[in-house]
């Protein structure tokens, strides 16, 4: 209820925006705080969200996603589609038309050459470009004329909007980055810290991992925007401090990602200086079941690989029982409040890809017990813990260090305790857990635990690559230095066949159907992945900041040009 009013309020403010201002720089100064501080303003050299979002104030792509996940043109005149002829019938090429008379912030003209250069910059094999996957399958990028760019793919692409779409792949100025390609990318500190862009603001001073001072871009394409003359983009601290600075002390106007306990956020909102906004994307907090045996007694080349199936969790009924014992509604209440929804799906959005499955929502302790009985796990020695063939039902449950995750771990341990499962908890520092260090036993890829919990999502609105992670053979294993995305070591030839079909299907409705099926094969059919919460994004803004339209499909600051000061 509350969420709705907040959203409506934001939408109303958004609609009123054009009337409220008329002149660039008329509204003075705006303060933005991100509790993760940006390190670099070139998103191609860092995949970090903080860096992508901060650079999106300065750099722009050809098109962006709007808060509903629709594609909207930014530097392009329109979004190319098969209908308007921008995308070829055979889905092997896409042609972007660029808006005429665009200027970089240094006053030079923006041309198709810059776009071609950006592609070359990222696709350089020496450069270590973080957004390389956006350029997957591209054969050539060529400038047909100064305002037209044609991208040709090696194979038909049902979703051709990877490159130059969204905050991850904005356009860099060729003149500035010309000498910064390949191995020299890292040496161009000046360019990486002060990129020349087409966005509403330009960098005055960048202090890495601390603060960015920006001012309005004098050559921005809309002469009336941005309304703010200057901006301070402060980084550092934690979510609590950021929330306090916006909602309680009023020192800042916008705070990013206030992932806080609901009651803490509620208390802060009583400060009366600002409000929170929520939007949902594709981020799902889930429990991953390990289908392979992580026992330390196994040889290192067999441990947690497909060669050793899990002694307990290989049984579908056991996995299902563990899922049934969880009360997702309560998890939402303790962890996310209005910024979360209980979910049974790996792909919760966009609507056409999201399965309607809701089976897992009601908690069913008795049903879970019955399933375990049926699976042969009974408490034969009366110590409250089930056993089978002399083996105790003992699980090691790991997650990254994060207050909400530890609360979830405690709650889930209690529920599993009720159905006679003994759980050992472990939390691992995020910098180790999410790192790919093959030498560490604690990475989520290595999965030296029985179950683990984290959140993941996908870029943009198309889940194909996301679902393809669970292909046979894509699992982390010693021969791949424990790299791989099939964390559960799931393997089903039928799943792989369906994935191939998805890659060939261009028709949207059909794609949606296949994606839903794939999603269900991982969740409801096999309980390989046990989704818990569809996590929304909560950000806060002060009462006097107008124009905020929270976007989970793109950078949160995607429409910073439209922000303005509400006059009291």
């Amino acid at each position: 209820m509350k969420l709705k009013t907040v959203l409506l309020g934001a939408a109303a403010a958004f609609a009123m925006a054009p009337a409220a201002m008329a002149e660039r720089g008329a509204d003075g100064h705006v303060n933005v705080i991100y509790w993760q501080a940006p390190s670099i303003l070139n998103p191609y050299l860092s995949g970090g969200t903080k860096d992508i979002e901060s650079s999106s104030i300065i750099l722009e792509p050809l098109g962006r996603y709007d808060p509903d996940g629709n594609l909207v043109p930014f530097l392009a005149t329109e979004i190319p589609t098969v209908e308007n002829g921008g995308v070829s019938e055979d889905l092997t090429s896409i042609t972007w038309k660029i808006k005429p008379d665009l200027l970089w912030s240094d006053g030079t003209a923006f041309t198709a050459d810059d776009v071609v250069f950006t592609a070359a910059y990222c696709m350089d094999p020496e450069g270590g470009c973080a957004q390389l996957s956006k350029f997957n399958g591209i054969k050539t990028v060529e400038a047909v004329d100064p305002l037209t760019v044609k991208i040709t793919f090696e194979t038909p692409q049902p979703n051709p909007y990877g490159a130059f779409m969204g905050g991850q792949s904005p356009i860099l100025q060729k003149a500035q980055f010309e000498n910064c390609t390949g191995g020299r990318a890292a040496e161009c500190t000046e360019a990486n810290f002060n990129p020349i862009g087409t966005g509403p603001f330009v960098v005055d001073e960048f202090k890495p991992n601390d603060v960015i001072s920006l001012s309005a871009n004098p050559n921005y394409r809309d002469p009336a925007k941005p309304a703010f003359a200057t901006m301070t983009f402060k980084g550092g601290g934690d979510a609590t401090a950021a929330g306090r600075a916006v909602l309680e002390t009023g020192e800042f106007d916008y705070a990013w990602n206030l992932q806080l306990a609901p009651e803490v956020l509620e208390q802060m909102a009583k400060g009366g200086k600002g409000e929170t906004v929520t939007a949902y994307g594709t981020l799902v907090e889930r429990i991953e079941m390990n289908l392979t045996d992580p026992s330390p007694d196994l040889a290192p080349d067999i441990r947690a690989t497909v060669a050793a199936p899990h002694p307990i969790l290989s049984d579908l009924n056991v996995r299902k029982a563990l899922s049934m014992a969880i009360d997702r509604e309560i998890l939402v209440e303790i962890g996310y409040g209005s910024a979360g929804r209980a979910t049974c799906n790996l792909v919760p959005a966009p609507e056409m890809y999201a399965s309607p499955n809701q089976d897992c929502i009601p908690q069913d302790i008795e049903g879970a017990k019955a399933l375990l009985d049926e699976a042969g796990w009974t408490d034969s020695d009366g110590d409250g813990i089930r056993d089978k063939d002399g083996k105790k039902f003992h699980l090691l449950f790991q997650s990254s260090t994060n207050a909400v995750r530890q609360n979830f771990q405690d709650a889930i341990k209690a529920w599993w305790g009720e159905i006679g499962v003994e759980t050992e908890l472990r939390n691992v520092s995020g910098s180790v857990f999410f790192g790919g260090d093959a030498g560490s036993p604690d990475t989520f890829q290595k999965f030296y635990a029985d179950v683990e919990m984290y959140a993941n999502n996908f870029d943009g609105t198309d889940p194909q690559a996301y679902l393809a992670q669970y292909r046979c053979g894509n699992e982390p294993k010693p021969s791949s230095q424990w790299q791989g995305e099939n964390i559960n070591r799931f393997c089903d030839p039928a799943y792989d066949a369906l994935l191939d079909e998805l890659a060939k299907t261009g028709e949207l409705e059909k794609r949606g159907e296949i994606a839903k099926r794939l999603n269900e094969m991982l969740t409801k059919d096999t309980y390989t992945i046990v989704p818990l919460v569809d996590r929304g994004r909560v950000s806060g803004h002060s009462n006097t900041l107008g124009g905020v339209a929270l976007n989970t499909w793109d950078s949160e600051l995607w429409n910073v040009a439209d922000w303005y000061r509400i006059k009291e």
Partner: protein
Amino acid sequence: MLNFTIRRLIIAVPTLLFIAVVIFGLLQLAPGDPMAQVPLTVPPEVKERMREALGLGQPIHIQFWKWLVQFFWVEPQVLIDHIFGSHFADGKLRVLSWQTRSPVMDIVVQRMPQTLWVVGMSYIVGILIALPIGIYSAYRQYSIFDQLGTFIAMIGFSVPTFFTGVLLIVIFSVNMDHGSFWWFPSIYDTTLKVTDWASFGQQIRQMAMPVTVLALYNAAQISRFMRASMLDNLNQDYVRTARAKGVGERAVVMVHVLRNSLIPVVTVIALGVPQVFGGAIITEQVFKVNGLGQLLIGAIEANDLPMVQTLTFIFAVLIVLFNLIADVLYGILDPRIRYD
């Protein structure tokens, strides 16, 4: 003493080299990956490419050698260039951070002012509070003042700064009216430049809370220490002798006892100086001061090894240097100490 100093300086070189090797080995051995902060949406093969671009694939001894050359050969040249406008370091690769892809030393220099302002000031304030409290507590041992001093010092030490910092913010930033004199900013503005009285006032205001929190913590420790040292000296024979000679009580305490008691205190204060440069990680984070402490912890979390290596090595140099200074001070202040 001069001999001793020179000998120690010579020994410092292999010591520091050894420390550098140990730190490097430790960082190599520690689990973690600079790609940990890259979202999971970036596929593993792209991450692998990014690691290669950082030079992670190279053999360890080559990585270490590169760092040594960059730190001891290229960086001094950059400094010389900076001072004299020469061009020795042009085109030479400096120590680059993995997070920012920019020279580590530039960021360190950028962070220095706020760390020295906040942490340095709190150290000085802490010492200025601690010495009189320590002296008086010892002189009037077990008096009300002493008991109160002990009590506050112990609270100051045992309550972590993540609590006191937030408490101050709740009181002075949240509950105070914005216009009131007692309102203080909860976020430190590192872009503030002190140019006139107004901006100086602003600087003082934004320093007030972090300095208070840290000074309390520092004062708690140093005052305990001063008190203990005074107590030991107050019972010595020379004090009795001085009193017997008819020296005034004030002179006895403030001249004879204090001077002797300060010897260990001064050395400990010297030993604490490197930690000023190390910053105060929690306090910096609570007030968003973003100084050297925040830089180090951020680099550790991001597994930015060149940054961590360089920062810890700089701290190591300071620690070795100030240990030497403490030893020399000790020898000068207390002639009975013989090092040779």
